[in-house]
């Protein structure tokens, strides 16, 4: 699903309100035009009436002068009709039958009314003036009228002009918005190009100047690029380390295997064979550990089951005990008498415990005589302890022991063991502690206990 484009969005946001506003303005303009035209036409009616009455006065009740007739016929862009009666209602000049308007009250000197003339609505001005024509003194009444439709046509023309103006403004605005937005959004397109150019091989930060509005996005992207870069670097370091680690046992295997056919002494041969098997076992083990670590680091899908730590430990110990016993080293397992329910991944926990046992066996030194595994419940945690009586490690190097590929001493072992253990325990919400002893080493694994009542 794609949301509306920014351009359409801005377009929709800006234009409809303006359109509405312009419609309102248009109506207002029309009203104004209407009123203006009324005022204008009324004025021109008045001007015409005044001109006619002056003419009448000058000419002493005769016909209109040509200039006045021109003016009258030209007034206000519409046909103008007039009718003049002298004192005593004597018809003087103009059209024969003036429109009959309602307010024929002669009291007002100036009287604008609406009336009907030949079936059309007209605007009528009746002007009364006292004059003396000849010997007659009285009111001369000048009536001028004009078709209302003329007036309306004028108003409509005014309104049309206004509407055309508003419409062209709106059109210009729409164009400006449409293309202006495109131009305004160009930095975004540039940014898109910049992102498009990024690839797993090129994850540099985006450094080009960007508008303040997208600064946050770019910062977030750059942070993401940084994380991906870091992750890839971590992977590369891991892979190169792993390859390096695998090369050693592989070359050891090769050298052992290559000389084997030349060994004729059966005693010696058996010894070499045993070395060969040990080397092969070690490389298989190392590959397995690397897989575990990979799985721990980059596979978040493993699901936790309800487990019982005593059972997990017993299985691992049973599997590992033959290796210990065959080297004439004592091995004991003392499970807690209570069940220790935990949530966890059987395989990962098994791997962690196996790693501790392997560490005890391979780093114990010649003085190692016994390895003891025990479990207890302690303050809400199931605690598994692996204790050996070997050479142990110095108190100040417990931190270094957890480093991946960070071996405390040159020797067998991949240097992955404790790093794996730590990852496993962290994932289980637990912890691992190294407690150097007077003699040997105690390693404690803590996993949170779950209440046995909640058993499914």
């Amino acid at each position: 699903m794609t949301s509306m484009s920014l351009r359409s969005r801005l377009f929709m946001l800006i234009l409809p309100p303006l359109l509405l506003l312009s419609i309102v303005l248009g109506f207002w303009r029309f009203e104004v035009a209407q009123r203006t035209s009324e005022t204008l036409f009324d004025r021109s009616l008045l001007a015409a009436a005044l001109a006619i009455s002056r003419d009448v006065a000058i000419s002493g009740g005769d016909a209109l002068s040509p200039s006045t007739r021109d003016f009258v016929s030209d007034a206000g862009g519409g046909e103008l009709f007039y009718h003049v009666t002298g004192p005593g209602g004597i018809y003087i000049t103009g059209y024969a039958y003036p429109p009959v308007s309602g307010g024929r009250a002669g009291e007002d000197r100036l009287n604008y009314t609406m009336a009907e003339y030949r079936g059309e609505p007209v605007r009528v001005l009746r002007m009364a003036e006292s004059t003396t024509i000849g010997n007659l003194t009285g009111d001369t009444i000048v009536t001028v009228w004009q078709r209302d439709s003329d007036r309306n046509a004028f108003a409509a023309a005014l309104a049309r002009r206004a509407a055309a103006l508003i419409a062209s403004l709106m059109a210009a605005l729409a164009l400006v918005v449409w293309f202006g937005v495109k131009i305004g959004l160009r930095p975004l397109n540039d940014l898109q190009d910049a992102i498009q150019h990024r690839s797993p091989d090129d994850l540099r930060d985006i450094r080009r100047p960007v508008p303040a509005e997208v600064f946050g996005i770019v910062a977030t992207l750059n942070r993401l690029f940084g994380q991906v870069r870091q992750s890839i670097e971590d992977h590369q370091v891991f892979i190169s380390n792993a390859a390096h680690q695998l090369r050693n046992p592989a070359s050891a295997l090769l050298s052992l295997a290559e000389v084997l056919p030349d060994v004729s002494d059966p005693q010696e041969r058996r010894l070499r064979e045993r070395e060969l098997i040990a080397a092969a076992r070690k490389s298989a083990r190392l590959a397995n550990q690397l897989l575990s670590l990979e799985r721990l680091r980059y596979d978040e899908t493993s699901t936790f089951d309800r487990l019982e730590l005593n059972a997990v430990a017993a299985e691992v110990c049973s599997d590992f005990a033959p290796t210990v016993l065959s080297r004439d080293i004592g091995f004991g397992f003392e499970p807690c008498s209570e069940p220790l329910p935990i949530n966890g991944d059987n395989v990962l926990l098994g791997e962690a415990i196996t790693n501790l046992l392997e560490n005890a066996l391979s780093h114990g030194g010649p003085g190692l005589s016994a390895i003891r595994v025990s479990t207890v419940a302690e303050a809400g945690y199931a605690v598994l302890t692996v204790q050996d009586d070997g050479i142990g490690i110095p108190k100040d190097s417990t931190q270094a022991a957890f480093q991946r590929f960070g071996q405390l001493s040159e020797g067998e072992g991949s240097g992955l063991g404790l790093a794996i253990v730590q990852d496993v325990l962290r994932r289980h919400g637990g912890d691992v502690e190294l407690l150097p002893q007077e003699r040997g080493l105690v390693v404690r694994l803590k996993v949170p206990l779950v209440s046995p009542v909640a058993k499914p």
Partner: protein
Amino acid sequence: MRIAVIEDNEALAQGIAHRLRDRGHAVDLLHDGEDADIFLRHEGADLIVLDCNLPGCDGLEVLSRLRRRGDGTPVILLTARAETSERVAGLDAGADDYLTKPFEMDELEARLRAMARRKNLEFAARDAIGPLVFDRTNRQLLEGEQPLAFPRKELATLECLLERRGRIVSKSQLITHVYGTGAAQEDSAIEPHVSRLRKRLEPFGIRIKAARGLGYMLEVDSA
């Protein structure tokens, strides 16, 4: 005994075949799922070692076809990693046992032996332990061709340890083997038998080692 080894990793398959042929078994090596299916349909086997991931046809598919045909030949599955789902699927499809790679040859052999025994198949009538030979058919321990006069319960104990040679055997497993399933014996009841057996076997370079809290392990001095 005829054993079909169905495994596409040829080096591993060869290794397994060498070991089993050394033990006197006939081994058929198959590297492809479809081939294996056809082979099992026509030739059959006494025991089957089956890898889960096979080209041609998945190992689990081979297994379920086998079971659908009503073929109950014991099958041990080899899985690449200890993935619980694969394991469960394998057992559901009718596997008798499974083993996670990488494994020790001793372990595979012990599993095959146990599997054969459960099906009342004679995996090996005679088993060499150092200088001695254990005769399963007559449940006798022979030095040369001469039977050694060991008490019956100790021979049963030895048989059980021998079956799982190189692995830890728990006391309860020993009790079950010696006294029968559901025997109302304390785990400690086996201890005197084990300690007497240990003394008797020591001169032959055969040792029974104890892991406290776990059980015993039979080990033969290789030198």
